[in-house]
């Protein structure tokens, strides 16, 4: 019983510790501080210009993450708020 309790306590602890560290796919696009970032709407406009139907954009780490659809396929586009360069693309 004691072993069981300690195993479970360890489990609970590991949950609390690992939770903040749960890595997201892609998070780092720039080192520039937020105040000097270009607006998210420009990242969305860039995705639109590239032929994506933009569903949503949000800040993910130091990136603008844009949810876009192209030819019926789902994509997550990661733009740098510094120069709006496309850093990463994930096909869902």
């Amino acid at each position: 019983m004691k072993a069981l309790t300690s195993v479970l306590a360890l489990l609970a602890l590991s949950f609390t510790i690992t939770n903040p560290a749960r890595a997201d796919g892609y998070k780092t696009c720039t080192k520039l501080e937020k105040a000097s970032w270009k607006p998210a709407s420009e990242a969305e406009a860039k995705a639109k210009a590239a032929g994506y139907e933009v569903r949503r954009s949000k800040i993910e780490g130091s990136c603008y993450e844009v949810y876009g659809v192209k030819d019926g396929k789902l994509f997550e586009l990661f733009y740098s708020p510094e120069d709006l360069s496309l850093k990463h693309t994930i096909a869902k």
Partner: protein
Amino acid sequence: MGPSRLTILVQSSRLKGRLKGSRLEASRDWSASAPTREGALVKVWDLPLRLSHWAMACCVLIAWFTPNTYDALHRSAGYGVLALTLFRLVWGFVGTRYSRFQNPLRTFRVLPRYLWAIGRGRSRRYLGLNPAGRAMSITMLLLLAVSGISGWMQVTLRFFGVAWVQDTHTYTSYAVILLALVHVAGVVLMSIRQKENLVRAMVTGWKWTGGTRPGTPA
């Protein structure tokens, strides 16, 4: 002959007097004297229930550690959760005695009393799920269903990148993990209190009837 019958009678009548005969769980206390290996060894949890329980635990664990990073694995775990939830809902109607659902309205009505009784150390022993366990299982299944469905919706053309779908998936998934920890804590607490390894019972399916009343509710 396990606990003294007299003790139980005295204890319960004293409580009943204090609580004016209300149908409090506490007034039916058998846990304090629940023996470990007494009565008959009976099969409580059937095999499909046990398999689906542990498979669900695995799927939830995998899903918790894989979002965004291991997308394919996360998705498979999610589909696993959905399939197991569906199975469990069906099994709650056609499974063996202790797998079957009881009236959830009644469960949530007696829940506060039972939790109060646990707090006072006077929760009685059940062979199947106690009221807290029943409330946990029904809430967990609903959350798993919402989490699984909203997760699946996120990768459909229609709901991809829709904020409320993403938020629903995030919050219900957090709630599932939170409840799972409460579930585990409850199992540990009752295992210690009733001197019975409930985790092993969920592996083997067998439990001792000692401490439960004959004809005890599931």
